[in-house]
C-alpha cells in the first residue's frame, strides 16, 4: 500500500518536473527512475521504518514558516559574530539537550532543524538526548527553553 502511494506520488512528481509527456524514450526513463527510487525506499523501509503518517505533511508548512524566521534570526546572529568578533565574541559550548519526541521521524526533524539553524549543530545522540555544539552560549540557552522542541513534538503527534 505504501509502495503504491509512493509510486503514484513519484510518477506525478516526475511528470510535473519533466514537462515532456509525449516522448516515449523519456517516459520510459522516467518509469525506470521511479522504479529505482521505489526499490531503494523499499530497502530503506525494511531496515528503518521512518515515515507512516501522511497528515504530517499538512502540518509541515506552518512549522516551516516558523523555522524560516528562526533561521533568518540565527543567520543575522552568526553574521555579527563573524564581522564583529570584538563586540559579539564567540563562546563555543557543547551540551546535551533532552528530546521529547517519540518517533524517529520527530527526532530526525528536531535534530535536522537544530543543524539547519546556523550557530547550532547536533552531532550525536545519547540516552534520548541530542548533543549540540553551539557557537555562542545563548543559542544553547534558547534551545533549552524548548520552543523548537515543543513545536516539533506538536508536529509529529504520535498517537
Amino acid at each position: 500500500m505504501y509502495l503504491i502511494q509512493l509510486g503514484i506520488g513519484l510518477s506525478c512528481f516526475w511528470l510535473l518536473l519533466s514537462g515532456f509527456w509525449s516522448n516515449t524514450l523519456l517516459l520510459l526513463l522516467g518509469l525506470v527512475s521511479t522504479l529505482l527510487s521505489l526499490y531503494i525506499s523499499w530497502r530503506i523501509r525494511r531496515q528503518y521504518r521512518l515515515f507512516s503518517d501522511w497528515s504530517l505533511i499538512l502540518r509541515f508548512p506552518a512549522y516551516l514558516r516558523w523555522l524560516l524566521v528562526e533561521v533568518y534570526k540565527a543567520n543575522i546572529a552568526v553574521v555579527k559574530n563573524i564581522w564583529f568578533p570584538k563586540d559579539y565574541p564567540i563562546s563555543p559550548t557543547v551540551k546535551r539537550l533532552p528530546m521529547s519526541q517519540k518517533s524517529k521521524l520527530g527526532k530526525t526533524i528536531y535534530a535536522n532543524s537544530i543543524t539547519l539553524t546556523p550557530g547550532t549543530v547536533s552531532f550525536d545522540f545519547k540516552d534520548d538526548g541530542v548533543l549540540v555544539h553551539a557557537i555562542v552560549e545563548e543559542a544553547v540557552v534558547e534551545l533549552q527553553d524548548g520552543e523548537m522542541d515543543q513545536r516539533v513534538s506538536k508536529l509529529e503527534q504520535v498517537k
Partner: protein
Amino acid sequence: MVPDLLTWIFLLAGSVLGITGAWGLMTFPDFYSRVHAASITDTLCAACFIFGLVFQAGWSLVTIKLLIVLTLLWITSPTSSHALVRAAYRAGLRAMTHGNKHSGGGRS
C-alpha cells in the same frame, strides 16, 4: 522593473552572505565553529539566490522547481553537516569550548 530590482537585492544579499560565510570559515578558531560559518552559506545565502531567481522566473513551473531545489537543499545540507561533525567527533577531535580555550585542535 520591480521584479528586477528585487532580484538585484536578493542576489546581492546572497553574495554578501556567501562572502561572510567564507570569511567566517577562515577566521573562526576551530573545526566545529567553522561548520557554523559554513552553514550560513547553505541556508540563508542559498535561499536569497533562489528567491532572487524566482522573481526572474515569475509564476511558472520554473518557480516551483526552484522552490523544490531550495527545499531539498535545506533537507540535505543539515544532514551532510551533521555527518561531517559526527565524523569529526567520532574520530576524537575535541571541541574548543568556552572556559577552556586551549583544549581544542588536538586529538584526545
